């Protein structure tokens, strides 16, 4: 067995193509692709297609798009792809809370079959029985994993799934004539920020629970916050710290006792699949990120998919349509008068559901359990190594085992060397791994970094990552300048970040940049 700690990639350098902007490439008159050509038989009948277009709506100047031959467009984007640290090419455990696990290649091939990629969402149910069967059957898996009774996959990402639950909470109280009175949603500071943001967008006043000295959301504060105005509780468990809250049932019971609804953001579910479920913890609504826990790739930030699963009494509020089975045929149920309506167009990202279904059908019950237990094993193994590194700590829950991730702190390093977490983040990338995730805002854990070694990494990978952290720590004490001036080996030189922080100078397009003349 290889010892990963000996694998420190001293000579790593990211691909640096210094590739020009595509807006400045090409030669006038060149073509990258020719679209389908208009047949003579149509041309001769229709004549000038623009004749009937209202004069003011005809484009006067062609758009200033580049004119480039096909091989050069391809080469340009291939080069750019080489300047990206996808999960496929690195030990991508730094992006804690993101669950960067292996996305099986066979699934990438399957989503490209015409039966998936070239079907229209409004085709007759009869024409898409295979698609509906996949959706329905994956729904049964999600129901079993969550313990819930009904499902929908409409949300295009975790945030839209959490928003779906916030909308359902409101619809539920509205159905009971309490929508106005119940105007408060409670969340926790270690839950993903959308658990505060999306109910706020839905019109709720938000109450945020901070951790007690043990790192759990303060139960007394929760009880004090509950009232006839409580609409619901929206939280994660384990929270961003990786700490599983063993008293979670007391939280949900307390919220139920005043008539509130409990929504579980299971974006952090990778350690509890097959171990513990939303139902037993007392939640009414749950949501999973299929692009995290169920292996669908993240696409550089989407498309993803949120699986929302709810108890029976909330099923009538789900976004429409839902996918049902009458024993013979799969069908779309639009007959939902109490539905919240829609959160995303059509049914959502069903290619993500297909990948997730394929993943679950490859693993089965034992495999899914093995994935969860390995993710937790990997996390605790890495933690046991990192907590020996000078300057690293993990506030809260001392002596307890965390599940799928840990929010660490460089607080001691910062105090002793002046090197903080963002400095370290710029240095770790010099050794051939992705940048890491510090923390959601605000930083409750000082100088935070959050690592999540899913089931996809080997012991040698974990050893290598620990060696990088150890190396950077030792540099902080011996040669902090090498960290301050990092990165040294990445695809671009050090950036002028100040420009990005002054709104007057922000340019999101080349034409804006040219106009601003900076």
């Amino acid at each position: 067995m290889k010892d990963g700690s000996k694998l420190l990639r001293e000579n790593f350098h990211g691909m640096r193509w210094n590739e020009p902007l595509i807006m400045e490439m090409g030669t006038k008159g060149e073509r990258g692709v020719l679209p389908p050509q208009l047949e003579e038989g149509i041309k001769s009948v229709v004549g000038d297609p623009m004749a009937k277009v209202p004069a003011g709506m005809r484009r006067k100047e062609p758009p200033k798009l580049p004119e480039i031959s096909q091989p050069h467009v391809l080469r340009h984007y291939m080069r750019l792809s080489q300047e990206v640290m996808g999960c496929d090419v690195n030990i991508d455990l730094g992006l804690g809370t993101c669950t960067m696990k292996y996305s099986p290649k066979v699934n990438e091939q399957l989503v490209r079959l015409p039966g998936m990629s070239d079907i229209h969402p409004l085709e007759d149910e009869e024409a898409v029985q295979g698609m509906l069967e996949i959706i329905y059957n994956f729904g049964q898996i999600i129901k079993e994993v969550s313990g819930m009774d009904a499902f929908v996959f409409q949300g295009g990402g975790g945030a839209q799934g959490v928003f779906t639950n916030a909308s359902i909470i409101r619809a539920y109280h509205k159905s009971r004539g309490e929508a106005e009175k119940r105007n408060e949603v409670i969340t926790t500071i270690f839950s993903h920020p959308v658990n505060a943001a999306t109910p706020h967008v839905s019109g709720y006043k938000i109450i945020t629970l901070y951790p007690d000295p043990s790192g759990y959301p303060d139960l007394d504060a929760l009880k004090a916050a509950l009232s006839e105005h409580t609409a619901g509780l929206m939280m994660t468990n384990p929270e961003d710290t990786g700490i599983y809250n063993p008293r979670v049932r007391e939280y949900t019971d307390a919220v139920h006792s005043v008539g509130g609804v409990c929504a579980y953001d299971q974006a952090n579910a990778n350690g509890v699949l097959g171990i513990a479920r939303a139902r037993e913890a007392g939640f009414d609504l749950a949501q999973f990120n299929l692009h995290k826990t169920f292996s669908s790739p993240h696409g550089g930030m989407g498309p993803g998919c949120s699986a929302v699963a709810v108890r029976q009494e909330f099923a009538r509020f789900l976004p429409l349509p839902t996918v049902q089975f009458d024993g013979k045929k799969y069908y779309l149920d639009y007959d939902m008068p109490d539905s919240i309506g829609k959160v995303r167009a059509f049914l959502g990202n069903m290619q993500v559901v297909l990948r997730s279904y394929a993943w679950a059908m490859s693993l089965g019950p034992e495999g899914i359990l093995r994935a969860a237990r390995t993710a937790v094993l990997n996390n605790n193994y890495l933690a046991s190594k990192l907590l020996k590194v000078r300057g690293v700590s993990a506030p809260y829950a001392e002596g307890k085992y965390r599940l799928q991730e840990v929010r660490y702190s460089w607080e001691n390093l910062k105090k002793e060397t002046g090197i903080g977490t963002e400095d370290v983040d710029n240095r770790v990338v010099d050794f051939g791994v992705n940048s890491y995730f510090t923390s959601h805002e605000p930083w409750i854990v000082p100088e935070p970094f959050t690592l999540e070694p899913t089931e996809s990494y080997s012991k040698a990978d974990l050893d290598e990552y620990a060696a990088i952290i150890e190396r950077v720590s030792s540099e902080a004490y011996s040669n902090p300048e090498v960290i301050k001036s990092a990165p040294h080996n990445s695809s671009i030189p050090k950036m002028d970040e100040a420009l990005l922080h002054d709104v007057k100078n922000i340019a999101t397009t080349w034409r804006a940049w040219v106009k601003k003349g900076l």
Partner: protein
Amino acid sequence: MSTEEKPFVHPYIPNSAPEVREEMLKTIGVGSDVDLYREVPDDLRLHRKLDIPAPFVSEFDLRKHIEGLLAKNKNCNDYVNFLGAGCWQHFVPAVCDEINGRGEFVTAYAGHAYTDHGKYQATFEAQSMIGELIGMDAISFPTYDWSTAAGSSLLMAARIAGRKEVLVPRNLNPDKKMQMNNFCRAAVDIVPVEFDPKTGLMDLNDLKSKISAKTACVYFENPSYLGVIEANGAEISRIAHENGAQSVVGVDTISLGVLAPPSDYGADIVCGELQPLGMHMQYGGGLSGFVASRDEVEYLEQSPSFLVAITKTQCEGEWGYGWAQWENTSYVQRDQAKDFTGTTTALWVLTAGVYLALMGPQGMREVGETIISKAQYAMGKLAGVKGVTMPLAGTPFKEFVVNFDGAGKTVKEINKALLGKGIFGGKDLSKEYPQFGQSALYCVTEVISKDDIDKLAESLQEVVK
């Protein structure tokens, strides 16, 4: 919890071999990985195996299983497809599929500017090219779909104007209306503006009667849901501005090689759909929305998501890219967030960039002209079918309403019959727009051939006789 007796070694999961697990457990200082779950109380645990199907342990068997399911679907390559209504069948260049299949892009996520440089550059380039297409200078990170983008645009306009009422056309996609209602309900009041049932254009008199000092914005689409090119865009923007309101325009991006960019007719905020620019339909999974605006501080500060922006590096002429306005997003604003963002559609905006780079100005003009020509040809052919009419006089881009009242059959019956002939008929509008009777929304794009259109006309002739 069972303590698995036999080793389970799955190809996706390293660290499955017993010796490695033993060694790792030793380092941690526990006897079994089950002990790592001490914090999960017994009564919250699932004391049985998940009741889900047994796995297809080999990749070959898994593939056979999924291929079998997908083969049950009738796809738009084998059938002639006239469905659109928010998701459209367009030509997808091979290079788009090649690039959005690159593992580096597909499996990236939120790495920072130094590790994911190529992703940020490709995103910035896509924004730049979309900016040229729509005539706007500022674009925020993509959102889930056009409907979400439209909702975010309404909220953004309301924040900028400091007003609560938003005017939207009555002839919206009803699904979009539902999505907007649920999304924007708490922050704005949505007031519908009528449309002229003869032309399909916005009813300017109704607009004038409804606009007031309370109006934050007027939203309209080009082309509209019912397919018509909005001829009065400049007048609508003028009326909006006269009342201190924003002009917000939603566009089908593939029309803009031939149709005027919204900046030409006074748009302050522009949103729309990118799916036609290189994304397969994927049962609706190819959608991607964007929100663009004037490049002014008050707009940038109110953008619904973070911004990917360009900056300098230590080397002259070598650009860097990073996230800007992060502090204004739901990630930081939390309980004060005015909108929310997250994992949306990064891979698709990148693909739209590849598409625009391939097509260039000539390709965009050609595809636009081809689509308009084919739509006009199709309308002419269908007009020759007895009992079939096209009630809207406005000029379509690629979609148009077809009425079957004279045929004595419902759209549902007609579409069933067409399906038997290998054709997906247009979207049934009879419930959404009862004023149009038994009507359907037909879509004709550049991938529909003359033969396909002729076949549709012949088939309808047989179905309605």
